[in-house]
């Protein structure tokens, strides 16, 4: 290809620098984030634990705030399996897994029913 003749070698050199620095910084950034989010729960857990300890709700050697149990995990796994088998049917470029959350709407509040009956035409 003729294009090959045009490459200025300096671009390669600068490109290599960018690549090296780039991969280094991407790792650094995500590693720092990883570090921070590794510490946050421990920090909160400790706060919670010392609070519970103070209040005498747990004893000194007891664990507090445990992770999910094995059964829970199995249940999730099963659910995931069901989820995967329906996969073909879902719209797929979009991310992710969301809880169905009951959503408070003021429009459903009792007042409207009442108003509806006797206040507005």
């Amino acid at each position: 290809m003729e294009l090959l003749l045009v490459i200025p070698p300096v671009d390669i050199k600068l490109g290599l620098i960018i690549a090296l620095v780039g991969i280094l910084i991407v790792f650094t950034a995500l590693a720092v984030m990883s570090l921070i989010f590794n510490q946050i729960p421990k920090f909160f857990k400790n706060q919670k634990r010392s609070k519970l300890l103070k209040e005498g709700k747990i004893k000194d050697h007891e664990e507090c705030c445990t992770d999910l149990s094995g059964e829970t995990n199995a249940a999730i796994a099963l659910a995931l399996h069901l989820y995967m088998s329906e996969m073909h049917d879902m719209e797929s470029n979009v991310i992710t897994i969301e809880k169905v959350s009951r959503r408070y709407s003021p429009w459903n509040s009792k007042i409207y029913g009442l108003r509806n009956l006797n206040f507005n035409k």
Partner: protein
Amino acid sequence: MKRALTVFGIILFLGLISWAVPNQKMGDLGREVAGNEVVKEKSSQSSDLNQGSQASADHAKRGVKNFWSYSGFANASIKHFLMILAGLLFLYLSIRHGFEPLLLVPIGMGILIGNIPFLLNSGMEIGIYEKGSVLNYLYFGVTAGIYPPLIFLGLGAMTDFSYLISNPKTLLLGAAAQLGIFVTLIAALYLGFTLPEAASIGIIGGADGPTAIYTASRLANGVKMWNGIQSANLIGPIAIAAYSYMALVPLIQPPIMRLLTTKKERLIRMKSPRQVSRLEKILFPIIGLLLTCFIAPSALPLLGMLFFGNILRESGVTRRLADTAKTSLLDIVTILIGLTVGASTQADVFLTTKSLMIFALGAVSFMVATAGGVSFAKLMNLFLKPENRVNPLIGSAGVSAVPAAARVSQVEGLRADPTNHLLMHAMGPNVAGVIGSAVAAGIMLSFLL
């Protein structure tokens, strides 16, 4: 037989019209119309009309001929048909086989729309590259880099970062999979692209359409100068390549994943994720924004919007905004970006050697990225206690392509052990990959803008 009848009908129709236009042969379909001549012909003809000296039957014939010269039939070239076939292929793959339909259907239809042949430079204001056309106005959201951040806003409002927060070390897998970006950058330089072009091509390896489009709109937009050389406009090919390979993730990744892992590794069971508190979920976008954007401010338009969308979601008090961001707004922008990216493949601009090279580089990029993620997972395992080890199959999910790549991990995991579900573990590196490639884009923009 009836099929033949239909085809015959169409040929008859074309024949009838071409009979009415004797000077233009059907064989001309393949030639590029020399716009000026036809236009000139038109104006001379209209002055003829002004003299009003011919019979009206003759007039009507000239009218048809004139109209014909503006039609798609008169302006079609083999390139147009190739692109139309490509568009049909996209539609077929997405509708029939479900490959990323929300992106490929708009892009496929956009390719058809962008490759209807018309008389260039005739002032009809149709083409996407023609100032004043509707498509050109809509395309502005691509060239100005406005659509990608809005998509990131919607993705942020849609994405549950719980899995990532519950297992932060998977962030590193999202970093490792960016290897594809930088390897491709170098490879593209060797193929003769300028540095900004090469950087934009590299981002294809991030497996993230909006990030790729944003980077290309900044660096390979046909305007950007570098060492006195004007960059080519590569937004179209880069976007098409990125989305194509994202759709093909279920075909590209598995062989590489199996090649790089042992049976034993593929069987690794991971600890179930821990419960994540609401506070952590709220802190995540705030800390994520500050940290990543302090490091790479150029990633702000992408990551700022991603984390903005996520806090709308997680704050718990702005649900209606998050809902709109991830439904109406995301859908509108998806429709417009798909359509215009598709239409930007206008044959005369798209079908170049560069596009071919970009497609080749994109494939390499995805493979290296996959390999990077999987290998780094194996490397991590050397330093981790046995109970904390990660299944290297989730490393490949670091390329982003959310959630397709995570599903590939799940499927490959089930293939090795039908009771070992990796999906939720793979969501961590998967969304980390989005952050990782946006940071990588930001770094390259810092260097090259």
